[in-house]
């Protein structure tokens, strides 16, 4: 037993006891404890094992600076991996297990690895495991790697809230400097947010100070908090600022309790005051990884916040002026304290599993705890995220904030200001942009850096087992830059992100190479400052809220009619109605009429005096000759000449066109049109309105379509309504637009009405259609109907290579003289190749099954089979009575009647090249009536 709870003191409630287990044993803590403080209070000394050698590990630090105490935690039915014991508050019923230790941290069977440490220096796996093959060794290594265990269960409702918030001043860190700065700014009229990652404000204030500005620390903190809130400031405890991003964006993770996702706050701060404090650097000495070796500052914090004295016989090993006051505090709490000057010789920790003494300069001292500090390191991560520079301060033997990022300042220990009074005045000044008074520092430190060449091992990274010898090895092998050092040895890459190892590591490298510390420099600081759950970034974007689908106005009608709804082009649309029988729906459309919700079809209106020349430029086809009231089919190309979208364009007036593009492309086509509108045109003469949402559409298609139309009271002379024309009329006293266009090859009418009339329209069409055998059809049937006519679907029957002349539309390429998008791309060597893949139809032998979409057409050559094309669409066609397919095939149009080999998953079949228009090639059905 070493640590114990003192009778009085700490920000805990001794009355409220909490039961928990660790590695199967029962313990008790109190409200306000972290798991670490509770275990220390119970005298538990071994809380984990190191990653590589499985050496026993005790708690080192008190908050985010601990690399050793990492547990898999279960509470009721929620399990979380890799929970740091020092930052996880104790809850009744918690069950903790040390990660990567079996059966327990105390008795890990892999502890035997340490015997073979000589064979496992840094980077040893680069030098071996090559023969016979890495795969032989990898599975074993993967099982041994990793820390916590991830269960497969999903925590229901584990979803972070996310909020945006603004302020004039964001103060990060609620210790004395942060509290003082926040109060000053709030009272000066600024909107202030003060965040601190502890549940109680005060930071490191409780550790050292008897009183502050005449009152006890707890009182002072309370006073500051009240004053800040009274002045309109916002206090956010239990909230960690974990990243600073471009444009003054700071991300906060607000703790909501165990098993709940933290809340993400995105703060846009006009100014930021970083008052994040400083942490102890370990002392690098022989066997310094023994459980019982701890941070000096950490020990003071355990006492002040948690009422835990970490040991009884305590040795203090340090090099700076904080030592004596710290020793006094520990003595007053009941510890037997001996102070050792770390600069006066080489220390060595004694003990096998746990510390039982320290040897220095030939003398031995018994102790159960050794508190080490080679100085304070300001916590500057956020400064670096924001692009601020660091300066090396010889007097402090630390990197401190240097050239500031715009709008960011640092105060207090984070800025290297370790004296309390200085910190307060500095923070108060910087918070309001006032000049900082000149200050004298009382902090004295004799630089103490790792000394290479000692016999025993000296640890730099406790979790990853990186020792000074590893750094010597890295230097010897010329992995000398600080980034190479880090990656080669893995120092600083553990879950503590190098908070206790980076400084000592780079100082060691500096010493080895005879360079100064600033010359060696630091590695890149990146968010998150502490590990944060991935769920924090996800927010509510799950399930239906992840890439939500667009919904049809008529969805209720489709559901009522028993439709199967599916995702098509970003919309939730009826795939089919009732029991899945696509054949039935296709035949219904061919023999009577199909009724289809075509609302997703784009309706992009182009208006203005230059609209005509504009659409003529946008389209591959000539549009300028399109008459008012007429419709034309056309392609939009990329600048490279590739087919980007197809659709129809209607001319409503001289200056008014409606582009009906594919439903999945509406946003991108609108954006492309806007982009071209602004490029080389007078933008006041062309306007583009995406009106897709304003005009739901019902399509009636089939031989009986006209009969149905006649009953709809649309005031159109159906006898004078040729294919590819447009009528504007009224339906139930509202505007209606009717286009006679067809995607099925039968007479089709697309009726668009306002949103508040479409239910009536749908009902009327259904009613009129029923006695004629007409009924609703879904997207699946539509896909078959259009394929029967050889109509393409862009993105399915075309890809990133297909040009319009591959699809049989060659005239504009040859004849259109006006400039258009993609023109140049249509005349490259590639565009002129003779063996381009062209759209054809395919017929299978009698009795054969439909081809697989994605099957390739192949030809034999000297080197074997090679692909000459691909099947893009394939269906059983009820109208034709046999399977049909569309394909892109090299020199396709020259191969009519040829039988080709189809290759699919190593199986071969044959198919004959035919025209892609399987049904009614002369278009009689289209133009009927």
């Amino acid at each position, binding site marked *: 037993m070493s640590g114990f709870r003192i009778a009085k003191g700490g920000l805990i409630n001794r009355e409220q006891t909490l039961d928990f287990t660790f590695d199967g044993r029962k313990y008790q803590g109190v409200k306000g404890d972290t798991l670490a403080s509770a275990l220390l209070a119970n005298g538990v000394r071994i809380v984990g094992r190191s990653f590589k050698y499985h050496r026993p590990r005790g708690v080192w630090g008190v908050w985010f600076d601990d690399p050793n105490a990492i547990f898999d935690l279960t509470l009721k039915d929620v399990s979380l991996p890799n929970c740091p014991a020092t930052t996880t508050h104790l809850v009744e019923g918690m069950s903790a297990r040390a990660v990567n230790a079996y059966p327990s941290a105390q008795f890990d069977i892999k502890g035997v690895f340490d015997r073979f440490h*000589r064979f496992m220096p840094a980077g040893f796996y680069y030098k071996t495991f090559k023969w016979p093959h890495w795969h032989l060794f990898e599975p074993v290594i993967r099982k041994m790697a990793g820390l916590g265990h991830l269960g497969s269960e999903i*925590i229901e409702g584990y979803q972070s809230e996310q909020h945006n918030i603004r302020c004039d001043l964001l103060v990060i860190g609620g210790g004395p400097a942060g509290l003082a700065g926040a109060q000053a700014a709030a009272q000066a009229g600024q909107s202030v947010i003060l965040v601190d990652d502890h549940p109680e404000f005060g930071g490191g204030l409780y550790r050292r100070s008897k009183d502050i500005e005449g009152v006890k620390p707890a009182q002072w903190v309370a006073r500051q908090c009240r004053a800040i809130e009274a002045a309109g400031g916002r206090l956010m405890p239990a909230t960690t600022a974990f990243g600073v991003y471009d444009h003054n964006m700071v991300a906060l993770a607000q703790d909501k309790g165990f098993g709940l996702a933290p809340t993400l706050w995105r703060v846009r701060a006009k100014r930021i005051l970083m008052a994040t404090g400083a942490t102890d650097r370990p002392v690098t000495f022989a066997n310094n990884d023994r459980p019982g070796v701890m941070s000096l500052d950490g020990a003071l914090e355990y006492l002040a916040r948690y009422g835990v004295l970490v040991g009884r016989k305590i040795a203090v090993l340090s090099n700076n002026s904080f030592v004596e006051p710290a020793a006094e505090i520990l003595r007053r709490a009941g510890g037997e304290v001996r102070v050792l000057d770390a600069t006066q010789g080489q220390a060595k920790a004694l003990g096998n599993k746990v510390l039982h003494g320290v040897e220095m300069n030939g003398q031995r001292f018994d102790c159960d705890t050794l508190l080490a500090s080679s100085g304070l390191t300001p916590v500057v991560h956020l400064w670096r995220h924001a692009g601020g520079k660091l300066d090396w301060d010889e007097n402090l033997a630390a990197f401190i904030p240097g050239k500031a990022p715009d709008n960011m300042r640092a105060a207090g220990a984070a800025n290297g200001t370790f004296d309390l009074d200085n910190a307060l005045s500095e923070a108060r000044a910087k918070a309001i942009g006032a000049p900082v008074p000149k200050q004298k520092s009382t902090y004295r430190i004799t630089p103490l850096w790792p000394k290479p060449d000692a016999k025993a091992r000296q640890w730099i990274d406790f979790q990853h087992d990186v020792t000074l010898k590893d750094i010597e090895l890295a230097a010897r092998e010329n992995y000398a830059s600080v980034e190479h050092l880090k990656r080669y040895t893995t120092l600083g890459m553990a879950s503590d992100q190098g908070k206790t190892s980076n400084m000592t590591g780079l100082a060691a490298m500096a010493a080895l190479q005879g360079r100064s510390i600033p010359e060696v420099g630091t590695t890149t600081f990146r968010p998150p400052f502490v590990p944060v759950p991935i769920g924090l970034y996800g927010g509510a974007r799950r399930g239906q809220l992840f890439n939500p689908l667009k919904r049809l106005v008529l969805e209720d009608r489709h559901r009522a009619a028993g439709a199967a709804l599916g995702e098509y082009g970003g919309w939730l649309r009826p795939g089919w109605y009732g029991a899945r029988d696509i054949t039935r729906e296709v035949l219904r459309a061919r023999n009577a009429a199909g009724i289809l919700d075509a609302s997703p079809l784009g309706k992009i209106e182009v208006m203005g005096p230059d609209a005509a020349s504009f659409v003529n430029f946008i389209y591959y086809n000539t549009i300028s000759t399109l008459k008012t009231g007429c419709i034309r089919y056309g392609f939009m190309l990329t600048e490279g000449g590739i087919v980007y979208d197809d659709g129809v364009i209607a001319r409503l007036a001289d200056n008014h066109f409606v582009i009906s593009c594919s439903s999945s492309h509406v946003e991108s086509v609108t954006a492309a049109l806007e982009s071209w509108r602004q490029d080389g045109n007078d933008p006041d003469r062309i306007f583009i309105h995406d009106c897709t949402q304003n005009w739901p559409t019902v399509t009636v298609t089939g031989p009986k379509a006209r009969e149905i139309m006649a009953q709809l009271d649309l005031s159109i002379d159906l006898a004078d309504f040729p294919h590819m024309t447009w009528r504007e009329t009224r339906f139930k006293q509202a505007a209606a637009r009717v286009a006679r266009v067809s995607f099925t090859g039968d007479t089709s009418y697309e009726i668009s009405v306002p949103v508040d009339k479409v239910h009536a329209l749908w009902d009327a069409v259904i009613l009129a259609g029923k006695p004629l055998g007409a009924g609703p059809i879904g997207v699946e049937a539509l896909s078959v109907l259009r394929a029967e006519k050889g109509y393409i679907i862009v993105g399915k029957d075309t890809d990133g290579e297909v040009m319009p002349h591959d699809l049989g539309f060659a005239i504009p390429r040859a004849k259109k003289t006006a400039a258009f998008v993609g023109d140049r791309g249509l005349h490259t060597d590639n565009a002129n190749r003779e063996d381009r893949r062209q759209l054809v139809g395919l017929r299978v032998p009698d009795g054969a099954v439909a081809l697989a*979409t994605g099957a390739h057409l192949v030809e034999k050559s000297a080197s074997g089979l090679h692909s000459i094309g691909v099947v893009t669409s394939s269906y059983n066609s009820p109208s034709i009575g046999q399977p049909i397919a569309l394909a892109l095939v090299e020199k396709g149009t020259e191969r009519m009647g040829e039988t080709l080999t189809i290759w699919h998953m190593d199986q071969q079949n044959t198919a004959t090249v035919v025209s892609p228009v399987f049904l009614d090639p002369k278009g009689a059905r289209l133009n009927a009536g």
Partner: protein
Amino acid sequence: MTYSAFSLLREALRNHTGWKPAWRSPKPRAEYDVIIIGGGGHGLATAYYLAKNHNVGRIAVLEKGWLGGGNTGRNTTVIRSNYFYPESVALYELSMKLYEGLSRDLNYNVMFSQRGMLILAHSQPEMEIAARTVNAMRLNGVDADLLGPEDVRKRAPVLNFRDDARYPIHGAVFQGRAGTGRHDAVAWGYARGADQRGVDIIQNCEVLDVIVEGGVCKGVETSKGTIRAGRIGAAVAGHSSALAQMAGVSLPIQSYALQAFVSEPLKPVIDTVAFSPSAGTYFSQSDKGGLVIGGGLDRVPSYGQRGNLPMQEAVLSGLIEMAPAVAKVKLLRHWAGIVDVTPDSSPVIGPSGVDGLFLNCGWGTGGFKAIPAGGYLFAHLLATGTHHAISRPFDLDRFRSGYLVDEGAASGIAH
């Protein structure tokens, strides 16, 4: 000095004092036969193959920072050759095959783990595209399988098979030989191999200008002085446009930040690489236990080597959709590289247009998997002045002839 279990054993008993530097830190000479600008994976591999395959005598690699510190040290370590066009397949298969023998060849364990890659398909149309891709790969002689949902579940049970999945899994394209490698080791292995063959790797040497005399590139001005060379190859991902500008060459390249992420280390969760084009995210698990995660580009062109929150949220939301159980796993770190994106998502390998200066760039988000092939082919180009058959289709002139190799669909994520 050979790396082996034996030498490791021997040195273990000597306190590891006998290991030699992995590479020297030489001062640059005034002149070389070939200078390679860029000490990342491609540059170092080029130097290695120049020395090994072509016996070129005096070679220097000039690296602005520390070798391997650019995109080679920042990627998500995926190696695959599941591409659609035969030209791409030839390129990435060459690379895959070189990777398969690389650890032995370099005498440095790059930890190439061929544990397979799944490209998930979440609908019938996606399965059709998957079939098309698998067929294309198999016809090109590359291993590929089309898996159904049960096979995917067996391979990666951590993926989302819940009823409320936004993107239910219909199946996947599976390439068994694909996998991951240790990115730093690839750079270090090539560096050591090149150095052993006499290549001077000059770190902390920034090229400030390109010397062009009479329309011919003759050398470079650097922060360590003027260095002249017979031929110069630039392999500087993220800065290709800027460097080409020094020689007056304009490239059809836009540079964007590409972010990558790693989680805390976990006991094994997934053994393969999984990519969901619909979710916009892919991930794998490193041999140390962290989940390595990637997604699409940050929207704004930048040289910043850092990305921002919106893309982080997008990629990680996608990860949670792919594997909901990981929502509670903590993110350890994220970083970014700068990728050079070409109009067809395929690289540029070939002469620059200025005699004596050659380019290997434009790899977009896919440069790591291609390091061995990039080096191999670029070495051929620099040694002989002409293309290897496999690099010919990737010459800059394809943007004029229109013979693009548009792998937009294949890489799925950013382009």
